[in-house]
C-alpha cells in the first residue's frame, strides 16, 4: 500500500531524514521506532505532504505522492494524527470530527445550508467508537490531554482513511488512557481492517500491537522486520535499545 524508498530531507544542511525506507502492506500495523531526533516525525510529515522531500520516492497504492499538498494526500486516502495535540480548540468535539467528514464528502463549499444537521450520524458513530460520544457537546479546549489525543484519532477517522498514520498516539497519557488507546487501535485494525502506521516510545505497546517494526537512527532505516527479528537484531540493540532489557516486552 505504501512504499518509501531512499527518502531524504535536510534542514539547513542537517539531514533529518537520510535514506529512509519503509513498506506498509494493506491491513498491516507497522510501527516506526527510534530515539528522539531519529527523524520519525519528519518521515511522517514527508509522507503526508507537510514537507516535500529532497530526494527519494513515496508510492501510495502504486502512485507517487511525494511533494503533493497535504489536502491532496488526504484525499488519496491517508489520514494522520499529530504528536503535539492538533485539534480545533474553539469548536465542539462533535464539530471537530464533523469538519473532517464534511471535507471528505466535499461539502465544505456549501454556503447556505446549516452545518448543524449535516453528517451527524457518521460523526456520532466515530465519536462512539473512540469513546468520546459523551463529550460531543464540549468545547475542545476544555478536554483533558488524554481525550484530546483520542480526538486526534477521531478527527483522522472522519476522513475515512485507508492508511492511518499516528504520531506518538499515547504521548503524555496515563496508563489507563494508554490501554484504552491501544484497544482502540486494535479495534481499528482488526474490526475495520484499517492499515496503521505509527511511531511510539512505549516499547511495550509497540511490541504488543505491531505486525512489523521499522527502526530509524539518525534519519536512516536500520531494519524493518517482525517484532521478533527486530528484537533479536544486533544493530538495533546496539544503536537504539541499548541491551536486551529494553525490548523484552
Amino acid at each position, binding site marked *: 500500500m505504501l512504499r518509501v524508498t531512499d527518502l531524504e530531507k535536510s534542514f539547513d544542511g542537517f539531514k533529518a531524514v537520510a535514506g529512509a525506507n519503509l513498506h506498509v502492506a494493506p491491513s498491516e500495523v507497522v510501527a516506526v521506532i527510534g530515539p528522539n531526533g531519529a527523524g520519525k516525525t519528519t518521515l511522517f510529515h514527508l509522507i*503526508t*505532504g*507537510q514537507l516535500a522531500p529532497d530526494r527519494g520516492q513515496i508510492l501510495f497504492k502504486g502512485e507517487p505522492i511525494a511533494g503533493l*499538498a*497535504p*489536502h491532496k494526500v*488526504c*484525499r488519496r486516502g491517508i*489520514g*494522520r494524527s*499529530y504528536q503535539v495535540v*492538533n*485539534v*480545533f*480548540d*474553539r*469548536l465542539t468535539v462533535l*464539530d471537530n470530527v*464533523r*469538519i*473532517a467528514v*464534511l*471535507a*471528505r464528502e466535499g*461539502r*465544505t*463549499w*456549501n*454556503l*447556505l*445550508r*446549516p*452545518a*448543524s*444537521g*449535516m453528517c451527524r450520524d457518521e460523526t456520532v458513530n466515530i465519536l462512539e467508537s473512540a469513546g468520546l460520544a459523551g463529550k460531543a457537546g464540549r468545547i475542545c479546549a476544555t478536554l483533558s490531554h488524554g481525550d484530546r489525543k483520542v480526538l486526534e484519532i477521531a*478527527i*483522522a477517522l*472522519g*476522513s475515512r482513511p485507508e492508511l492511518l498514520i499516528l504520531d506518538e498516539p499515547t504521548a503524555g497519557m496515563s496508563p489507563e488512557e494508554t490501554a484504552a488507546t491501544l484497544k482502540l487501535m486494535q479495534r481499528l485494525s482488526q474490526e475495520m481492517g484499517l492499515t496503521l502506521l505509527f511511531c511510539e516510545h512505549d516499547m511495550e505497546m509497540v511490541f504488543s500491537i505491531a505486525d512489523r517494526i521499522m527502526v530509524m537512527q539518525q534519519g536512516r532505516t536500520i531494519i524493518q522486520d517482525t517484532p521478533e527479528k527486530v528484537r533479536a537484531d544486533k544493530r538495533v540493540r546496539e544503536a537504539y535499545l541499548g541491551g536486551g532489557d529494553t525490548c523484552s516486552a
Partner: protein
Amino acid sequence: MKAQSAGIRKTGAAAGALTGFLLLALVLPRFYLYLLSLILATGLLATSLNLVLGFGGMYQFHHSVFYGVGAYCLALILTRSGLPAWIGYLAAPLAASVLGLVMGLLTVRLSKLYFGMLQISLGSLVWAIVYRWYSFTGGDDGIHGIPVPELIGTSTGAYVFAVLVTAASLAVMYCIVSSPFGMTFAGIRDNPERCRAVGIDVTAHQLAGQVLAAFFAGVAGTLFVTVEGSVFPDMMFWTLSLEILIMCLLGGWFTFFGPMLGAAIIVMLRTVVGIYTEYWTLVLGLVLILLIFFLPEGVLGILQKGRQAGGKDAAGN
C-alpha cells in the same frame, strides 16, 4: 426538534427586530434616522470584516478599501455613466469582490502578519490612485451631491433602505457562518495545518472568504453613498480600517452581532464626543487600551461567556 424550535425562535426574533427598526422610521426625528443609518452601514462593514477576521482568523488589516471601492463605483456610475441606478447598486459590491479576488490572489498564501502588511500596502495603493486621480475620482475633494434615486433619497427612505439591505446582508452572512463553509472557515482559523490534513484546500477557502467579505463591504459602501450622498478618499484610508477593526474587537470578534454592537458604540461615541472636542481619536485610543485590558473578547463575547457559565451552573445544580 430542539434545533427546529431554536430556528423558529431565531427567525421570530429577527422578524421582530426588523419590524421594530422599520417602525422607528415613523417616530424618530431626522437626525436620529441619519445616525442609525450610519450605524447600520458601518456595522455592516464591520460584520463583513469579522467574516474573515473573527470567523476566518485572517488578519484583514485594510478592509475599508473594499468599502471605498464599492462606494466610489456606485458614485461614479450615478454621476458619470447615465446608467440606471440599480446597475450601480449591483456593480458596487461586484467591483469590491473583484478587488478582493485580486488582492486575495496576491496575499492569501502569506502568513498572518505578512498577509496583513501586504494588504495594507495594496490597499494604500488603491487609496493613492483615488486620492490623486482628480479628473476621474475628484481627488481629495471626493464626489458630492450624488443623485441617489428619489425613493431612497430622503432621510426616511435612506433609513428604510439601509435597514432592509442590512437585514438581508446579515441574514446571508449568518447563513454563511452557520454553513459547512463557515464551520470549515472556523476550523481554518483554529488550525489551518489540521484542516489541510483532513483534505481541505485552505488557500481556496480563504480566498473565497475574502471575496465574500469584500462583497458585503461593497454593499456597505452603497449604503454610505445612499445615506451621505457623497464619497471621499478617507473612506479607504487605513485609519478607517483600524477603526472597524476596533469595532469588531469591542463588540466581540468571536460573535456574529458583536461588530454591529461595536459599530453602534463607536459611531455614537464619535458623534457625542465630536460635539465637545476635535480630538476624537484620543478617545478611540483610550477605548482601545481599556478593551485590551478589560474586555479581550469584546462586550458580546463577555456576555456570551457569562451566559454559558450560568447555563453550566444551572445544569450542575
